[in-house]
């Protein structure tokens, strides 16, 4: 909407300026004035259009738009007949105070020095009130007429002269990052005000001789040229501003994820080599003359704190865009780092799971080798001995011995198989399998599980493994007196908690049993936690997601 209105305004100004120029040419109005006015109006309207796209520069844009309209109106006396031509005479200088405000504020939001403000009030009174009064009231009493004429004459010399002083003051006082912008408008203003001042002086002195008359001629032409070209200067500044913005955004995007390069790009964009980029939460340094701004991510978390010279706030739009770009680059870097970190964690846990699998296979081989295999070999040895024994009683004794050893071997195999994956878990689920953990434990194990609760096989197997390991740990390392196993089934998740009253102090160590449990639970997208304060028992909990 705003864009559409702006375009309509721009189009109107351009169209009117063009039409006025064509009309002037058709009426045979000669001279460079209509052309200069047209060029100026077009340049002013275009720079206004460019500036108004910046929230902070919208006011400057509006002022330049108004100046463009006034400039076109001032052309009226050249193209219209009286009394309509009077419009041109009244508005002849109106664009000057409008542009003047821009010259003394741009790129900031307000006039900084008090006397500049008074100067602008005087300029506005002079051109917008006193000058039309003089034009519209030619028959003022002689006394008042003389006073008005005197004031206008004095103002015509003093105001441009004071404006020159003020602009030089602005130029010299300008600090980065507004320095370039201030210098651009100062050049435009000095050219305008300087030539105007000299032109008026020369006119006053024109009667003194042919030399001053010639000076008047030259300065008048120069002043008219400046009047036409000043808007072009402003247009160039508006273009420079946009180009600088684009270049700065490019710099920050190219800076990538490296905070040092981001800082350098920020320093260049803000023309402030003292810019610091600090970690969030860094305490502020010396506060005098410095500003601190937080750089936030898309989700609102503070990524870093930027510290810069206070002068950078004089162009808030520039500062805002630089901070936004830097935040974007940093956020990107952070996301990348997060991703890499997650990836590394996933890789590490995958490796740990593989290593744990290898370890458990090796342990299984050891258990088989040291247990059932040796027992069966002992059976073989005993049976071989039975063959050697001659008497019947001794042979029967040996065979009985072999049978006992065989029973031991079978027991051992059964125990081993149950440790890997008990048959009851497949048949009756965790509610049926968890109580069997108590059978083998030397301490009372209390099991609370909803009867008939079933989960996917991987979930049941993993929770079984967690519970079995936790019970083993509680007995072996925790010196527990009693153990409690709780199974909870919720919508979309299954939880097993094992608590004991042992000595506590259990910690997950690299390659340790708890880390292995955490990895197995993590591999299924679950969460695993251990709470084990010294002397106050251990609580192990695994929550696994499952579609139920």
């Amino acid at each position, binding site marked *: 909407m705003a864009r559409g209105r702006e375009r309509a305004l721009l189009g109107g100004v351009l169209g009117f300026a063009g039409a006025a120029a064509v009309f002037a040419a058709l009426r045979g109005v000669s001279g460079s004035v209509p052309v200069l006015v047209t060029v100026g109006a077009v340049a002013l309207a275009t720079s206004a259009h460019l500036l108004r796209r910046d929230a902070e520069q919208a006011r400057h844009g509006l002022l330049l738009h108004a100046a463009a309209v006034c400039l076109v109106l001032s052309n009226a006396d050249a193209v219209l007949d009286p009394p309509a031509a009077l419009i041109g005479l009244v508005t002849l200088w109106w664009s000057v105070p409008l542009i003047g405000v821009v010259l003394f504020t741009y790129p900031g939001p307000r006039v900084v020095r008090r006397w500049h403000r008074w100067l602008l009030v005087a300029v506005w009174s002079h051109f917008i009130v006193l000058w039309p009064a003089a034009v519209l009231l030619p028959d003022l009493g002689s006394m008042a007429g003389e006073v008005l004429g005197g004031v206008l004459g004095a103002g015509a010399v003093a105001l441009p002269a004071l404006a020159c002083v003020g602009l030089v003051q602005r130029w010299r006082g300008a600090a980065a990052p507004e320095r370039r912008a201030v210098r651009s408008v100062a050049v435009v203003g000095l050219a305008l005000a300087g030539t105007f001042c000299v032109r008026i002086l020369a006119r006053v002195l024109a009667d003194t001789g042919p030399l001053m008359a010639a000076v008047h001629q030259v300065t008048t032409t120069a002043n008219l040229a400046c009047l036409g070209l000043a808007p072009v200067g402003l247009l160039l500044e508006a273009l420079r501003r946009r180009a600088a913005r684009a270049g700065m955004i490019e710099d920050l995007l190219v800076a990538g994820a490296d905070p040092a390069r981001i800082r350098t790009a920020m320093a260049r964009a803000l023309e402030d080599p003292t810019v610091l980029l600090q970690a969030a939460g860094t305490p502020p340094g010396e506060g005098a003359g410095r500003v601190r701004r937080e750089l936030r991510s898309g989700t609102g978390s503070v990524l870093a704190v930027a510290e810069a010279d206070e002068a950078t706030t004089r162009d808030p739009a520039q500062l805002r865009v630089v901070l936004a770009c830097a935040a974007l680059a940093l956020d990107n870097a952070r996301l990348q780092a997060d991703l890499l970190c997650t990836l590394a964690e996933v890789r590490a846990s995958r490796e740990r799971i593989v290593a744990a699998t290898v370890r458990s296979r090796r342990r299984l081989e050891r258990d088989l080798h*040291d247990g059932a295999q040796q027992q069966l070999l*002992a059976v073989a040895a*005993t049976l*071989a001995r039975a063959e050697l024994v001659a008497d019947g009683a001794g042979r029967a004794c040996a065979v009985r011995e072999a049978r006992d050893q065989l029973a031991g071997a079978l027991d051992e195999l059964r125990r081993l198989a149950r440790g890997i994956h008990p048959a009851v878990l497949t048949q009756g689920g965790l509610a049926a399998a968890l109580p069997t953990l108590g059978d083998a434990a030397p301490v009372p194990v209390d099991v609370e599980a909803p009867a008939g609760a079933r989960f996917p096989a991987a979930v049941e197997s993993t929770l079984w493994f967690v519970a079995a390991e936790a019970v083993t740990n509680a007995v072996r390392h925790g010196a527990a007196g009693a153990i409690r196993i709780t199974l909870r089934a919720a919508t979309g998740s299954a939880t097993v908690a094992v608590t004991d009253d042992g000595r506590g102090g259990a910690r997950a160590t690299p390659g340790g049993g708890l880390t292995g449990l955490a990895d197995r639970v993590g591999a299924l997208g679950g969460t695993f936690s251990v709470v084990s304060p010294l002397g106050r028992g251990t609580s192990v909990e695994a929550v696994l997601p499952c579609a139920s």
Partner: protein
Amino acid sequence: MRLVIADDSGIFRRGLRRLLEAAGHDVAADAADVPALLDAVEAHRPDACLLDVRMPPTFSDEGVRAAEEIRRRHPTIGLLLLSTYAETAWAERLLDDEGGVGYLLKDRVDDVAELVGALRRVAAGGTALDPEIVASLVRRRRLAGRLDALTDRERRVLELMARGMSNAGIGRDLFVSGKTVETYAAAVFQKLGLSGERADRDRNRRVLAVLAYLQHAA
């Protein structure tokens, strides 16, 4: 024979001890680990030792290293290593020895005659290799195609030779005379290009030659 046995599994060690005692041998000591074994060897100077390959602390090759240590201290004591698995790598390591060493699967405890036979051979400075290990070596060679020239009989004789058996022993196994075995053996040596003269003189050297062939000519 006076024997010392070493195995970390108590139940198997006891079973083995009682079996050997039932077979009429004197088991002077049984040890659960290498230090106890070495002490027992020093104390009793047995004719032969039976050692488990996997013993504490690392359960890898403690038995083999203990055997090497005993061999260094007392070259005349026969050493019979027992293992749950047939590892040809151990056999290869034993080939470096001059004899008096054997390597059997623990499964052989169900055949007292074979177990005692192997013990006697190593105690006498001979060699005893488990048939399964020899079979896997021969299988490997057959895959390489070099043993195809042998007849079935000759291959059987080769396997028995590799296990450390004498011509007379092989003859008993195959129900032929020792002379016939000699003929087969000569054919085998000739076909494989092994030095028959050296092999005939010394049974242990013969085993080493055959095993070396099976191991390294692959």
